[in-house]
Every structure is written in structure tokens, then in C-alpha cells.
């Protein structure tokens, strides 16, 4: 898992449109969204609730189709005019909002699930690799516990490791730390950065938390309210590797003010429309 590989995970979305058609009253969720994510970049997506951010992520992951435009990964077409829906695959692993570790498998079995399912590794090899990765991520000792027995923070880290073991091109994170308390969040931010610095994986991260976006992201993309489209993209020019000291720096405060102002404008619009949480 060394960083010298050819950099992968460059995502490019051109003119993506997604229209939901529940019972004939078609609702546009994504409106001509174009966005480029460099390989190895942490790209934070911020926007009001219910603005269609999750639909964007689902489209990249291949959970549903798109109506117009195209999505490419490292130049290859995931979905476009001739193939509306991207194939679901381990090159784009999703980490879900309230977690999706299989409660009936131990943490180790959860992590080893991917390689075994794809037939890349035998059961024993997958387990050994999983045990090694857990140790590296500071999770040793919890291998044989069931997810239900460990804390939610720890569960989230196991889920990230479960994604990484498949060496994905892009990590798709859908508000993974949403339901967690501030303390756990800060611990997880640091562990995510630690993993990033080792693997340099591209991370496509959706969140509501502005500070989280700026602290983690190379770039923060503020989306308009429904239907979502990139409104403004902010370059977070704070150098990596970052630690929590960054939060109090002047530059961080400036960016935070600008981003907050852009987001509030959109948040007000969607609030008046009574959008339920997307």
C-alpha cells in the first residue's frame, strides 16, 4: 500500500443531472453539476440539508442512474449517455451515514469480507491482512468482538479499514461522523488524516460540519440548495499534515467565515422551502 503507485482516484463530473420521478411529479435533485476532484485530494462537499448531495454520491457509487451528463474515474467513463448507471464496485467504497458494519460478523470478519467476496484473497490470507491492517490502525484487541459490542467511534474506524483493505480508488464518505459527539469526532478526524497521509487515497466527503470540512479538506465545495450545483469552491491553502492547532489559526478563521456566509445563504433558501433533512 505504498504511495508511489500511479496516483488514482481522479473524479470528473460533467454536467450531471439527476431527476427523481416519484409518481410523475419529477423533482430535479442534481442540476448540471460539474466538478473535478484530483487524484489523492480530500474534497469536502458542503450544502444545506436535502439539497441532493447524497444523490451525487449515490450516482458516483452506482447506487442509482443519472439523467444527463457523465462521471469519469481516472478518465474511464463510469456512467454517461450510453450507460446511465455506474457499476457498483470496490474501486469506490461508500462509508454510510449511520454505519453499515454487518452486526452478525466480528470486526475482523467484516474487514476480511471484501477481499474474500471478490475472490482476490483466500479466507486465511484475507484474515491475516485484516488483522495486520487493524493493528496498524490501532484496533488490535477488538478483532473478535461484534460491532454491537464496541463504541460507535471504534466502529467507524473499523468501517474505514473495511473500505481500505480493497485498495479503492476513491473513498466515498456520506456524513460518517454525523451522529457522533464532538470528542469522538476529533479523535476520528486525526485517525482519518493519519490514514490519508499513509495511503493518499482520494476522499469524497459529504458533511454539514463546516469546521470539519475546512480542517480535513484540500478544497471545500459549497453546493446550492435543491437542485444542487457547486456554488463556490474554496481552496483550503493550509498545508498538510495538519493537526488540531490549525483550528485556532487566523487563516482557518478567515476561510471559515467566507464558507459560512456562502452556506447560510443557501441554507436559508432551503429552510424557507421546508426541506426535510436530505
Amino acid at each position: 500500500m505504498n504511495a508511489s503507485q500511479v496516483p488514482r482516484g481522479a473524479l470528473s463530473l460533467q454536467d450531471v443531472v439527476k431527476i427523481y420521478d416519484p409518481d410523475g411529479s419529477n423533482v430535479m435533485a442534481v442540476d448540471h453539476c460539474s466538478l473535478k476532484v484530483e487524484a489523492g485530494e480530500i474534497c469536502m462537499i458542503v450544502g444545506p440539508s436535502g439539497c441532493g448531495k447524497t444523490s451525487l454520491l449515490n450516482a458516483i457509487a452506482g447506487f442509482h442512474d443519472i439523467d444527463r451528463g457523465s462521471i469519469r474515474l481516472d478518465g474511464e467513463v463510469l456512467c454517461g449517455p450510453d450507460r446511465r448507471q455506474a457499476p457498483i464496485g470496490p474501486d469506490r467504497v461508500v462509508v454510510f451515514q449511520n454505519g453499515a458494519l454487518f452486526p452478525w460478523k466480528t470486526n475482523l470478519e467484516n474487514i476480511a469480507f471484501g477481499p474474500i467476496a471478490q475472490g482476490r484473497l483466500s479466507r486465511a490470507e484475507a484474515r491475516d491482512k485484516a488483522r495486520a491492517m487493524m493493528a496498524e490502525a490501532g484496533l488490535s484487541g477488538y478483532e473478535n468482538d461484534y460491532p454491537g459490542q464496541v463504541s460507535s467511534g471504534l466502529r467507524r474506524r473499523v468501517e474505514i479499514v473495511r473500505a481500505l483493505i480493497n485498495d479503492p480508488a476513491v473513498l466515498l464518505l456520506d456524513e460518517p461522523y454525523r451522529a457522533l459527539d464532538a470528542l469522538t469526532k476529533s479523535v476520528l478526524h486525526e485517525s482519518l488524516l493519519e490514514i490519508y497521509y499513509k495511503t493518499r487515497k482520494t476522499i469524497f466527503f459529504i458533511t454539514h460540519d463546516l469546521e470539519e470540512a475546512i480542517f480535513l479538506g484540500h478544497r471545500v465545495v459549497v453546493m446550492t440548495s435543491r437542485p444542487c450545483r457547486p456554488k463556490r469552491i474554496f481552496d483550503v491553502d493550509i498545508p498538510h499534515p495538519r493537526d488540531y492547532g490549525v483550528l485556532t489559526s487566523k487563516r482557518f478563521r478567515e476561510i471559515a467565515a467566507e464558507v459560512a456566509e456562502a452556506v447560510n445563504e443557501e441554507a436559508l433558501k432551503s429552510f424557507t422551502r421546508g426541506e426535510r433533512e436530505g
Partner: protein
Amino acid sequence: MSVAQPDRPLLAETLTQWAEAFRRPTLYLAVLGYALMLGFWYLTVQVLKLPRFSQMPALTDVMREWTSRDPAYGVSIFTPIYYQHILVSLRRIAIAFALATSLGVPVGLLLGWSKAFRDYVFPLFEMLRPIPILAWVPLAIIMLPGDELPVVYLTFLASFFATALNTMLGVKSIDPAYVLAAQCLGASRWRIFAEVIVPGALPFIFTGLQISIGVAWFSLVAAEMISGQFGLGYLINTSYTTVEYPTLVIAMFTLGIVGYSTSALVRRVGEGLMTWRTRQLAMDGRG
């Protein structure tokens, strides 16, 4: 549901629980409850001989008959016929329950998992389900050969519907995120079925099995009463027609005890198999 700490020996654990039980008043109140019920029975039937109650079999007669070495009507805990009735009923329940589970669970899983299968099969399912199982008795007697098959068929039918339905509910209850997560990790449709859908539906399947064993006894009794030979339902009906009232009550209580123990067995097996579920419940669910 308290989880016994593995480090303390099991025997010590149960002894302390027993000691606590004796101190708490609930045990005495329970005994009082039983005493009141049996007392009411004894009082109304034997002492007071109230109008409707005097025909009912008396508590002392039933107990004497149940535990006598040479019972007046041939049925007591010392006579082999008693155990033959129990075994025949249990055999029918076992066959019907096994069949209902081995057919009901797969059908339920398919109903939950594949839309095509559900579109074709579920309408028929829903049309047959409201028909009370025992309305099938005459048709079962006519269509199926022998007198054993109709009884087992009726018991099977009741359990099958209960199992299949609950299994389907189980599949429906699985959080879609698990399926998508498995797909992301490159699992094939069949592996998702085996490693996500089946384990995910397990809790509902086991509640279904408990309902199914209860429904099985419900139908078995009636089927035996109408057309069976041997079995507790049969014993109840025959001891009614031959005016052997103590045996009637013995059969009813035996049915209660045997029915209860089979359901308890199914529940215990269910809990045992789902270790992750019990531990998860103990840790109050996922964060």
C-alpha cells in the same frame, strides 16, 4: 436480559439467583395465585357444588386419576397409553414444524428478496392466508389419503404461513445500507443473499418460529379432535364422548405442559443460535 459473566462458575450463578428468588415476595404471591385458582376449582366443584360447576370433573378426582397406578379409565402417568398419545402428538408437531421451517424460511427469504418471486407468489399467498386453517379440515380429509396425513398437513399449513410471513418481514426489515455496503465490497448477488440477507433476517425468523410452534399446536389439537387417532386432541375428544371427564382434564393439562415446553425449547434454541443478537441487545444496539 442480563448476560452471565463468564468468569463466575455457572453453578454459583444459579444458586445465588435461587437464593434471591426465595427472598423476594413474588414467589409467594405466585404460589398464592395458583392456590387461589385451584382453591376456586375445588371450592366451586366439590364443596359448594354450584349449578354449572358440579358437572365439571373434581380437582381431587383428576389428581388421583392422573397419578394412580391403576387408573379407572386407563390413562395416568403410569400407563403407556398416556405417553403414546403424547408421543404421537409430538411426532406430528415435529414433522409439521420441520417441514414448515424447511419450506417456510426459504420461501419467506425469496418473498423478501426477489421482487419477481414476490409478484407471482405473494398474491396467492394473501388469498389463501385469511382462510382459517381448520376450514381446510374436510378438504384435507377428502384429498389426502390415510388419516395421519390430513392431521399433519393441517398443522404444517398453519406453521408454514406463520414462518414464511415472518421471514419475509425479516428480510424487509434489513437496513438497505447493508446490501449496498456488501455490493460496494464486490459481493455477488448470491453471496449477499447468503451473508447479508439470511443473517440479517434471523431475528425475525426466530420470532416467526416461536409463533409457528404455537400455531402448530393450535391446529393440531383441532385436527386431532375431528379426524385423528391417538394424540392429545384425540384423547380430549374421545374422553368427552365416553364421559371420562377426569381424563379430559388430564389431557388438557398435559397438552398445556407439552405445548409450553416445546415453545420454550424453540425459544431457547433461537436465543442460543443468535449470540451476536443477544450481545448486541445487551449493548443497546448500534451507535
